[in-house]
């Protein structure tokens, strides 16, 4: 088993994957140039390191002036590059995944994310690729399905956009036999629109 880096995972999932505005910077100058184009806080992540969050290698809420220090620390901790992205403000976090079952073949999973994800394990699976309507029907099976209907008067999750992400995951799984597992986590829902903030592709 061989886990691709976040950047390589996202490349593997292809250009149809909805992502934040982000860049894999190979130099401090490139990082600063990118930061200059972003209004609002920036996220910086070390690249090529497993368990970035646990290792303290994800920096949130950076201003442009913080980029220099973040670069120095994160480039050294990882593979010498740093992933920078606009920081999203999500009303809900989801997880979209993919794996292979010995009996049922490739499957896409959709689950409620966030810090309690591992406690609730609120996940539903769909045979890949999903057929029309299956994603909408499947999310109704989630214990937390009402979270997707809109929180405190907010917009509901765009199920067409969510289905699109599920189909991107399914397509990679169904067309690339080297891919064992896919984990888009978190998928951040911002004003109803799901965006893949982090992704992991594991090869056999």
């Amino acid at each position, binding site marked *: 088993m061989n886990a691709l880096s976040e950047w390589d995972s996202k490349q593997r999932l292809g250009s149809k994957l909805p992502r934040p505005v982000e860049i894999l910077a190979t130099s401090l100058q490139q990082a600063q140039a990118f930061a200059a184009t972003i209004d609002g806080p920036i996220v910086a992540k070390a690249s090529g390191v497993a368990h970035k969050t646990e290792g303290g290698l994800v920096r949130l809420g950076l201003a442009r002036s913080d980029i220099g220090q973040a670069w120095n620390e994160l480039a050294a901790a990882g593979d010498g590059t740093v992933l920078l992205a606009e920081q999203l403000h999500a009303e809900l976090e989801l997880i979209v995944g993919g794996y292979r079952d010995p*009996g049922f073949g490739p499957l896409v999973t959709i689950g409620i994310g966030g810090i309690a994800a591992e406690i609730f394990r609120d996940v*539903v699976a769909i*045979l890949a690729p999903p057929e029309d309507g299956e994603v909408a029907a499947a999310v109704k099976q989630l214990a937390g399905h009402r979270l997707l209907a809109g929180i405190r008067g907010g917009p509901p999750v765009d199920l067409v956009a969510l289905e699109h992400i599920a189909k991107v995951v399914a397509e990679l799984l169904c067309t690339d036999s080297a891919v064992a597992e896919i*984990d888009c986590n978190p998928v951040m829902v911002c004003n109803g629109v799901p965006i893949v903030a982090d992704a992991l592709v594991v090869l056999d």
Partner: protein
Amino acid sequence: MSLDYLFAPRSIAVYGASAGASRKLGNTLLANAANGAPQVVAVHPTADSIDGIPAVARLDRPVDLALISVPGQRVEVAVADAAAAGVKVGIVLSSGFGETGAAGRIVQDRIAKLAAAAGMRLVGPNCMGVVSHVGNGRWLNGSYFWAIPTTTGGLSFVSQSGAFGGMFFSHLRSSGLGLSRFLSVGNSADVSATDVLEWLGDDAQTTAIGMFIEGFDDGRRFVEVARRVTAKKPVVVLKAGKMAAGAKAAASHTGSIAGSYTAVQAGLRRAGIIEAAGTETFFDAMDAAAAGLTRTAVRRIAIITISGGPSVLAADAAERAGLSLPALSEHTLAQLRSLVPAFAALGNPIDLTPQCPVDHFIAAIEAVYADESVEAVVAINCGLDFPQFGTGVARAVAATGKPTTAFVLDAPGVEAEMAAAGVLRFASPERAIAALNVRAGK
């Protein structure tokens, strides 16, 4: 080859009955098979006849179905004998094969190959056999079960567990529902639960199918077969071994959180199968499917009772299930007021009260059924054995065809009326409600 020979054989051979004083499972099998089947022959190395059935040392005719119940180490010889005689389908009931480990698995594969080479389909090994209504109230009992219920009907059942097959028959005896086909597939060396499902889907006699499944080796094929079958008739599945897969759930990403039971649920959902969480809900859902209650979705139900408390439990369960309890029309209420005591609560639940004149029950119940806002009815009666209450439900069901379930306790007269009308009774008010709300994809 079609499984017709399995479920409606014209001739049967039985391997494994003892000719001596000792009674073996093979003798039960022989007696069961001989009771009703047209042509039965026993295969035995020395005897000329066993328990009055003619016996031969080697099978000398191409019978439709061979039932093999010899000790494990002699199964291979028996299968070879049957295959050589041109048997269409063999059932190996004997144990000691794939379920015991790798060595048993090797023998099992060899037996399967032997059968396949001769064009003989093989059921088992390690199974309880077949029971089938072969028409006109005649039964094939090619199983170890010595007392099978003989009410004929549209329900068929496939089990990967022999013991659960016993639970199925026990349930059938108490529910009184009619049987079409039963097969215990055992280790499925050849014929799989999926193969049987496919055949049952095309079986005109089968109107509803129950399945007890431990594992899906052929998940995708099962889904494709099952979705074609569920387009024609309801299929209810009880999956055992949900949690073993859940043990895989330790790791932190989604794929592992899911585990393989989640995959099973995905498959069952796509196939349009009704999945039950456990034994009780499975039998309830299977009964509901067999009684045709899963055919159309209902939302608006009436709860008719003369027992207050239990009907409130039913109302709670209905609301939890997303069903509604509509108010009756003014017209219906006017009719009811003329029939029941003034203090009767005519909201929904509709409590006719024990003080309702018994000869008014029928008209009152018919009035509720006739109300246009009522799509289905749950009838509740705890220990107030006015048979007219049951007669009212029976007549209204016959007149309107509205889906109905009941909770009846200690009221045999009421129960008998309902049973005769095919109204299913459940073990609690909540389960009577749930049975009206059995659907695929939940």
